[in-house]
């Protein structure tokens, strides 16, 4: 197995899991799904710069064989922004749950919990 295959298949697995979870009906599952999806997206962006082992993009004169710095810079900001987005979605779903008493994504009341109350 090659590194490229491992990364490509990991991207595929994360995407599939992320989309499946994002389509679920509970806010927390959607958050998990978005997290998986963002892993997949970050990895994909990173992979566009091709894979290099042990050649970090630290400048030294004369070196030509190095990892591509640009996708790395893009992914770095993407990771941080992902955190901001995740935090916002988490808080949004929490507030919506606290206001409505339901953690269903469309705010539909939960039949089972209504009976329990």
């Amino acid at each position, binding site marked *: 197995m090659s590194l490229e295959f491992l990364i490509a298949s*990991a991207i595929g697995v994360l995407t599939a899991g992320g989309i499946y979870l994002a389509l679920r009906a509970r806010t927390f599952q959607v958050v998990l799904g978005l997290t998986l999806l963002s892993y997949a997206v970050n990895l994909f962006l990173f992979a566009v710069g091709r894979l290099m082992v042990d050649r970090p993009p630290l400048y030294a004169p004369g070196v030509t064989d190095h*990892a591509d*710095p640009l996708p790395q810079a893009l992914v770095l900001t993407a990771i*941080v922004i992902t955190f901001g987005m995740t935090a916002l979605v988490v808080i949004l779903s929490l507030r919506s749950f606290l206001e409505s008493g339901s953690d269903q994504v469309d705010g539909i009341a939960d039949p089972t919990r209504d009976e329990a109350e």
Partner: protein
Amino acid sequence: MILTTLTTLPFLAALLLALCGRASRGVHIGIAGAASAVGLGLLLHAAPGVLAGTPLTLRIGWVPAIDLDFSLWLDPLGLLFAGLILGIGLLVVIYAQGYLAKDEPTGRFLSFLMLFQGAMVGIALSNNVLLMLVFWELTSLSSFLLIGFWRDRADARQGARMALAVTGGGGLALIGGLLLLGQAAGTYDLATILTRGDLVRASPLYPAILVLVLLGAFTKSAQFPFHFWLPHAMAAPTPVSAYLHSATMVKAGVFLLARLWPVLSGTDLWFDLVATTGLATMLFGAAVALFRNDLKAILAYSTISQLGLMVMLLGFGTAAAVTAALFHILNHAAFKAALFMNAGIVDHKTGTRDITRLGGLARLMPITATLGTLAVAAMAGLPPLGGFISKEMMLEESLHAGDGWLVPLLATLAALLSAAYSLRYATQYFGARRTGEIAAPHDPGLAMIGPSVGLVIIALVLGMLPMTIAGPLVRAATGAVIGGAPPGLDLALWHGINPALGMSIVAVAAGALLLWRRPPIARWVADQRRPDAKVLFDTAMAAVVGVTRRVSLAVHKPSLQRYLFMLFAVAVACGIDGALTTGGLPVGTRPTQAASPIAIVAWFALVIATGTVVIAQRRRFLALVFISVIGLVMALAFIRLSAPDLALTQIAVEVVTILLMLLALHLLPKIPPRLSDTPRRVRDAVLGIAAGIGTGWAAWAIMTRETRTSVSSWHWAHSYSGGGGKNVVNVTLVDFRAFDTLGEIIVLGIAGLAIYALLEPAARGAAGRRLREWRADMPHSPERHPMMFVMATRLLLPLALLVGIYIFLRGHNQPGGGFIAALVFAIAILLQYLASGFDWTDDRRKIGEHPLIAMGVLIAAATGLGSLAFGKPFLTSSFGHFTLPLVGEFELATATLFDTGVACVVVGAVMMALAQLSHVAQRAAKYREPDAEPPR
């Protein structure tokens, strides 16, 4: 210069009034009054030149691409209107001082009033039809604000909404009409359009233009059948009724007809539509006014009737009729504003506006009654007031309009009805003594009475010395309207015995007779079922809203699940389509690299963890644990694949993300029941797998192809020479692509603030109650702050901060930098929150999250702006290398300063999310619900 001042002065006054809302009433009145007075002074200063035939003009380019210029002119017609607006405005401001109760916000009121004044002056002076549209809409909006000024009153809100719906709807039609007009004439420049009347009238667009423009004008000027908003607008404070809904704004429609007269009039269609509507409105308004009991309602319907009169005159399409219309505009403004002020005084002093409960006020309020009687006489068209002259001119013109006897007959009937309701209006001053709520009403102070004194004097002088006071203005304005030499003008009370005089005498006499025989007719009218415009309007609105809702629900189901599904499905479909049409995604020939056993193990860990998250999604803590496994594998992959910066960032972000989710999960249901049914889960799984195969294959296809030369080689080459750093990733972030980073930290800061806004109110209301219940149910550890944990974290704090600073400083040359350092700082502080509690930590923190975010953005932006001072482009960096003992060589670059800003924002945003979240339940527990909840 004069034009700029005239248009901007009211807006400046509005702004100033809005800013100093807390200042005393005198200051407010001073500002508004001074703005109106200065405007009026400027206008008078410019008047002689304008009347002599040289209009002032001003043109400033605004959006030349759509032929929209800020183009103003002051011609005689504009002068007449602007004078009306500013003159009455000044009087209304003075009147408002006495009218508004002591505790009412005069600043807000006058601010709206000045906004309106500016918009009106703008309409009068616009020399570009698009610019005029802007001001036109602004008058609708400011009228909405003013009608709804008493916002706690339902009738005021409903009246405001109705006025906005009708005049705003007319405004939409007007937009269409004026755009078409511009197309037909080939320009939006008003003065040019006015010279191209033949072109426009010959255009196939002419009927559409005319109908649309008339819709705008008729809704604004309350012409039948769009009149119904005006009586409801009387819910406004009386100064507003006097100013907007009698003297100025409702005349904007009349002004528009006069303004576009050379272009649109002169056809049969114009005569049919305009004269007929005007005549119908004049009759209808006068008839309704006779049977109303509310003083302001009588005046409102009277206004509708008088506006109909002006519209009808303009519809006749002759120069003499235009003269009559313009002269009547002046007359009406004077006597109607005076009457509204008078009604306000009576309302104020007697506590009622019901005419059946008022009588004999002349003995108690002699000044008010005298002024009222004189103004009523003008409205009735009695000599020697100006109203008499303009009514006679109207009757005279009606004789020349059309072919038959119908128009003169109906015009006389309308004059008859006007005389009747006017005389009835005067009954409150005479006859038996009835004083409404208050036993002994009396004349008000100078502020309230003064303005109507002025207006009544004008109404009188307009009758006695019409040629001296109004002659030149009306003559020049007529010339401006008809776009040619002004006709000879002879305004006078006595023109000898002629048919118009006869009609006038008949009208007044019969009107008095009708009033005498009114009670049985009024009873009959009251018994009739008649459509209530408000009920019809509300029904129509409800129907429109219902249809809109049905239509939007048919195409738009408010469901996140459905949206996301469509989004992903469309993306997958596009991907498949793209791959098929371009012949698939061929794999390249780039040699692949063998994977080490460790890599394979890590891959297995990732796949299994992902599978577990998907399967165990409802056991949420478990899912969270496996999410962190995935994050860890990601970080390891980044290390292996030559991305140390990414690995550091990933691991730090992973920590805060998991902490955040743990805190949130704390408050969310732990193991909820399953919601989706099996077919739906299969459907989603199929979609997910399709997308997974697609993206995986795309990644594989890319990675197996050779690289091409890209911009990143430039980054590599210039990192050290241009950016002064060896860590190309960091240099890219803080230097080459710093503008991106600046945008990013702003987004992050906004996310932090949004989180605060979401969590701050969560302690109150329904959310607060749920939080308190939840807290009560929750088992608590007996030891809230374990000693070991507290001590360890306190020791850790300085160490962690040191590590953070180290990572920060070396970031330019080695893996590290502002983002990663900030995350380390944030985790160190968070540990204090976790170990020692929120209150303890909060007390010892010097800078809150809000200032931190603001500071960060400011530092980063200021660093970027600093380079401008040296004549370099935004965000250019400069640098130098320094050595410190222990730390070794490090670099000081302006980029470091930028990175400081980045770090501040990241710390602020992360802390905002986590600290607020960890604290929300405690805050809810401390929050005391107000005992009596406000009624919903």
